[in-house]
């Protein structure tokens, strides 16, 4: 058996320090007031303004219209992240189900068409996509932010591979048990995919949460501001003699980091379960 040595611990400690260090600095800096941050740069000490700053960031309005409180932005980011993740999972699961379990003309061809869209990132098609959303009158709506990005080649591919590894006998047993296509999907396939769903949920949630360019294109109304945009917004006041609220920007950054961390922490146990227990 392998025995853990001191050097192993050192490497791990060093690694965690490199990961946690910057986050700690961001958090500590956010507890100082803006002037101090402006004068001394990043802080590695406790500043004592924790409650002030965070209360202000969360509950007091910012922006031009005063509708974009931290809480509002947090909610928007949540809607975006969860909408993305859930929508993508539902859509790509159904697409993969069709591709794997139904014989239809050019099924493989369609799969590869979906797959090649991986080569076309959002930035390439952002102008036509904007045009479409605008013509549909979905600018400045949540659905405008979420729906156009739901098609997911990655998700479809993952689910396709997973479905292909599900033994055929399971489908046959279900058919004999009187389950139609829809029942088989809901009763059997979805439950046994749950670890897979958890994995994709993590990836897609973080992806949606971190979206910057797309929400900025789709929404101009501050009601729809996300956290990621909010951080930028605070630093934009660099006009005249005003000092940007660095502390608030850092506080927002901390807030923006928290939910993805929570999602990963919550779902990782499922994730590992899926890797170690053969559930098929």
């Amino acid at each position, binding site marked *: 058996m392998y025995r853990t040595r001191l050097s192993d611990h050192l490497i791990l400690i060093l690694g965690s320090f490199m990961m946690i260090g910057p986050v700690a600095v961001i958090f500590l800096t956010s507890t100082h007031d803006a002037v101090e941050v402006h004068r001394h740069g990043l802080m590695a000490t406790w500043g004592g303004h924790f409650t002030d700053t965070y209360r202000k960031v969360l509950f007091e309005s910012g922006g031009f219209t005063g509708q974009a409180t931290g809480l509002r932005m947090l909610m928007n980011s949540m809607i975006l992240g969860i909408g993305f993740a859930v929508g993508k999972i539902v859509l790509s699961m159904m697409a993969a189900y069709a591709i794997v379990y139904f014989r239809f003309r050019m099924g493989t061809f369609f799969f590869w068409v979906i797959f090649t869209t991986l080569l076309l990132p959002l930035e390439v098609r952002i102008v036509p996509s904007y045009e479409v959303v605008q013509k549909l009158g979905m600018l400045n709506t949540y659905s405008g932010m979420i729906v156009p990005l739901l098609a997911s080649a990655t998700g479809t591919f993952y689910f396709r591979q997973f479905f292909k590894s599900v033994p055929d*006998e*399971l489908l*046959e*047993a*279900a058919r*004999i048990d*009187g389950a139609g296509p829809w029942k088989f999907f809901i009763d*059997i396939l979805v*439950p046994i995919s749950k670890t897979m769903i958890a994995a994709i949920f993590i990836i897609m949630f973080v992806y949606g949460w971190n979206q910057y360019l797309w929400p900025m294109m789709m929404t101009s109304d501050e009601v729809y501001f996300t956290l990621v945009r909010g951080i930028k917004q605070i630093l934009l006041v660099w006009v005249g003699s005003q000092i940007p609220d660095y502390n608030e920007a850092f506080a927002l950054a901390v807030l923006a980091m928290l939910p993805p961390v929570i999602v990963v922490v919550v779902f990782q146990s499922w994730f590992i379960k899926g890797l170690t227990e*053969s559930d098929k």
Partner: protein
Amino acid sequence: MATISLETIRKVYAGDVEAVKGVSIDIADGEFIVLVGPSGCGKSTLLRMIAGLEDITSGEARIGEKVVNKVDPADRDIAMVFQNYALYPHMTVYNNLAYGLKNRGTPKAEIERRVKEAARILEIGDYLDRKPRALSGGQRQRVAMGRAIVREPAAFLFDEPLSNLDAKLRVQMRVEIKRLQRELGTTSVYVTHDQLEAMTLADRLVVLNGGNIEQIGAPIEVYQNPASTFVASFIGSPAMNLLKVTAGEVGLALESGSGLSGPNSKGKDRYTLGIRPEHLEVSDGPTDGDGLSLEVTVNVLELVGAESFVYASFADGGPEIVLRVPSHARYTPGETLHLKALAEDVRFFDADTGKLIG
């Protein structure tokens, strides 16, 4: 409870591969039929066509009075037990058993009664709340059978259900399946490549080879009078000894040249002699009479417990032959043995077609 009848069933896969070539079987109500054959003989395809999991290319399948060629598997009133059990991994044992009944809209109380009853018969009552992965192979096998039983179907279809179990459990479950089928009296079709399973379970055996039926009959009938050299070499372990001989002026000659004396087949001068290992007996010297008599050299003695098998060959090579001797008998490799067998135990097969003569 129902009869199953298959009429010139054919299955042709894309690319003109003919897996089943016109098979007809009539299965009586309550009968236990075993389809046996080597891999690729079409036995599983045939079963899956009865189940409705494969389309029937041509021919007619009937369960009861109803032609089921185009009927959905769920509506054929059959239940199937799969080789890998195919239990729903995310459901408890109870739900695994209940799923098919729920889909059919069976009332809750009735489902509960039937599941409890099946659990009692199969002695899986203690595991009803567990998930399949917390069960051993034998227990999963029982659950898979339970799923078939609760449906109270017209027929059970078994697709090599014991192949994934270890040897001891396999014997145990074999006995259990037989007992269960007797008790329930449900028509059953059972696919296996294991001739021992086939022999012990079947009311009637169907030996398949290359998509054709070689023989249908009671196990003992198939064992004693195999319809062809294929059946002779497939059923029985070790297999029947098959000797290709030519009738000459002084007895019989093997292709390799060795002579032996034996009963003559009716009129043919070239044929294959078949003799079961247990019908060969060691004698003191060459024997006269119309029985089989031959002289061989011992190659290997294989002790299997209650008995031993002697593998021996003729002086100038030729086919190796096997005989069964009591376990206390000791023969050393290189030793010469005289063997004899009664004429009535010898079977004759056509040299060209391999079919049983007489």
